């Protein structure tokens, strides 16, 4: 299996442990990744609120480049997934697509409108197959209790994300957690906002969201939370100490990137998966894994 790889800015910026972890895990699964040359940011929904045409044209440019490669797109960022899907949804309007293509023509690019970018999480379930992944689990995570955290962009709005045709997408993280042998810690907040988009605008509310989700999961006895979104990870992990001090309690809940959880179940060492780069220590979780 080979994909046009769209890593997104954060996997090489604020959450630099994600990029190598995803590449490592994909290579173990036999998923070949060829990075889209000169890919740009999707706009993260921020550019779209100021200039939707610019944001959507950037996405069409990435899609057109992947089409030139002749490969389907794989991303490891939920926010990118959501923004790409929404842009794609708007480009189903032929007039809008033509307008966008007029801005790409100068570079010799044209987007057909037929790309279907997919998050690694969806690819594992829809294209790769959970059975096949299950066969690679050499170190089942039986002693771990793991809570899912989707965030917003990979679950809403359902229309742009084709949830009606793929209802399993809304259960995908839970399916993955159980496949890897961990005990699922389900909680209502799993599809709520992590607060990252308003971090620099209303930090108090942003921290209240981080504190609410992480402490709820901690109190349910989870060892860690897993997310397919590096932006959620930035807030839930990087800002968790600040959120804890605002909530006037200790939380200390490790947050794992989805590929890291898969990697642990494949027996890859925490060091190779970049767990040492997390702000909230993953030490207690690693001790549990070593204890067997």
């Amino acid at each position, binding site marked *: 299996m080979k994909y046009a790889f769209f890593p997104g*800015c954060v996997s090489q910026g604020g959450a630099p442990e994600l990029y190598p972890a995803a590449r490592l895990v994909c290579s173990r699964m036999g998923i070949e990744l060829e990075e889209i040359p000169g890919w740009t940011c999707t706009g993260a929904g921020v550019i779209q*609120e*100021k*200039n939707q045409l610019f944001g959507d044209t950037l996405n069409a*440019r990435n899609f057109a480049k992947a089409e030139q490669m002749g490969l389907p797109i794989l991303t490891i960022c939920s926010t990118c997934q959501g923004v790409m899907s929404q842009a794609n949804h708007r480009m189903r309007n032929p007039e809008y697509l033509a307008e966008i293509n007029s801005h790409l023509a100068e570079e010799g690019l044209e987007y057909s409108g037929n790309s279907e970018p997919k998050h690694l999480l969806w690819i594992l379930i829809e294209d790769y197959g959970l059975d096949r992944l299950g066969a690679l689990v050499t170190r089942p995570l039986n002693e771990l209790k793991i809570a899912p955290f989707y965030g917003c962009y990979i679950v*809403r709005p359902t229309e742009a994300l084709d949830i009606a045709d793929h209802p399993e997408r809304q259960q995908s993280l839970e399916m993955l957690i159980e496949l890897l042998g961990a005990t699922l810690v389900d909680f209502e907040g799993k599809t709520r*906002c992590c607060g990252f988009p*308003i971090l620099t605008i209303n930090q108090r509310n942003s921290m209240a969201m981080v504190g609410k989700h992480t402490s709820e999961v901690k109190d349910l006895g989870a060892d860690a939370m897993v997310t397919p979104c590096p932006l959620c990870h930035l807030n839930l992990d990087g800002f968790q100490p600040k959120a804890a001090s605002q909530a006037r309690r200790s939380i200390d809940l490790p947050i794992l990137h989805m590929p890291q959880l898969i990697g642990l179940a494949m027996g890859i060492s925490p060091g190779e998966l970049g767990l*040492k780069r997390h702000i909230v220590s993953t030490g207690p979780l690693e001790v549990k894994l070593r204890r067997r």
Partner: protein
Amino acid sequence: MDVTIRVKRQDPEAEDERRLPYWEEFPVTIADNATVLDALIQIREDNDGTLSLRCSCRSAICGSCAMRINGHAGLACKTIVNSVVQDGVITVEPAGVMPVMKDLVVNFDMFWEKIEAVDPYLKHMGREPEGEYIVSNDAMLHLSGVTACIMCGACVSDCTVLEVDPTFLGPAALAKAYRFTADPRDGDAEGVSMERLWALSEPTGIWDCTRCNECVQACPKGVAPMDRIMAIREQAIQAGYDNNNGARHTDAFTESVGHSGRLDELRLPIKSVGMMNLPALMDYMPVAFRAMRRGKMPPIMHKNVDNVEAVRRIFNRTQPEPAAPQVSNNSPFG
């Protein structure tokens, strides 16, 4: 079909344990195409006359029966049992955010206070037109998307910001505000609602929205409140109300990507809070220090993508037409 309706009940005025939330299950036999509201009414008629809920029109017009069905807000009268039943069970809870009065009935006071706070009526600045105010069909057609709101509160129920901060104006009131900021009769002679845009740019307004899409998903009438909030942000920036973290964030983000193709994560937060805002910048120092110790800081030297000239050309080509007249960031309205 046979289905179990699991209802979250509560009677805050009760003197026994029913004053706290508890779950009760009601097995019902009902037609496949019945609505969740049909099932609830059947329970009230046949099983338990004390079950409290609001309803009236039963056809998604009156906006009375918004509640959480399987964890997400929607109208009970518009939700078909067959479409939401999971393993024979449907979970029904009162709408979120607003306080429960009894069972599925919530107190709407905060909802109406927020609607009132955005002055939900036309405010024409300057001289009244001498004759009839003629508005184009297109302008009214555009507004019909927002006036479709039936004030059911589904969006408020599921708003992730209101969940942690009740002072936020919220999706329903902000969508209502857009109904006026986008009305050519509101505001000055050009239809620019300066006073509103200034007020909406203040804390608790448009910039506090997280863009989580919950309200878009919850709205039974396709109002898409979040998209309206984004549209007001654009209006406010165009009107010159850009001296706030939200507007600076959007500006800095767009410029960073327009210039280099990717996001400069190191400089974005600095530009958002303002280069000269030392207290806010100091506030980030512990976080930055922790990140640096773990080797997590974004690169100091932000690199351009290959063929960045093409991205810059797209950026220039897709710029909107010059904006409306600029105003200062201080309120001209005292």
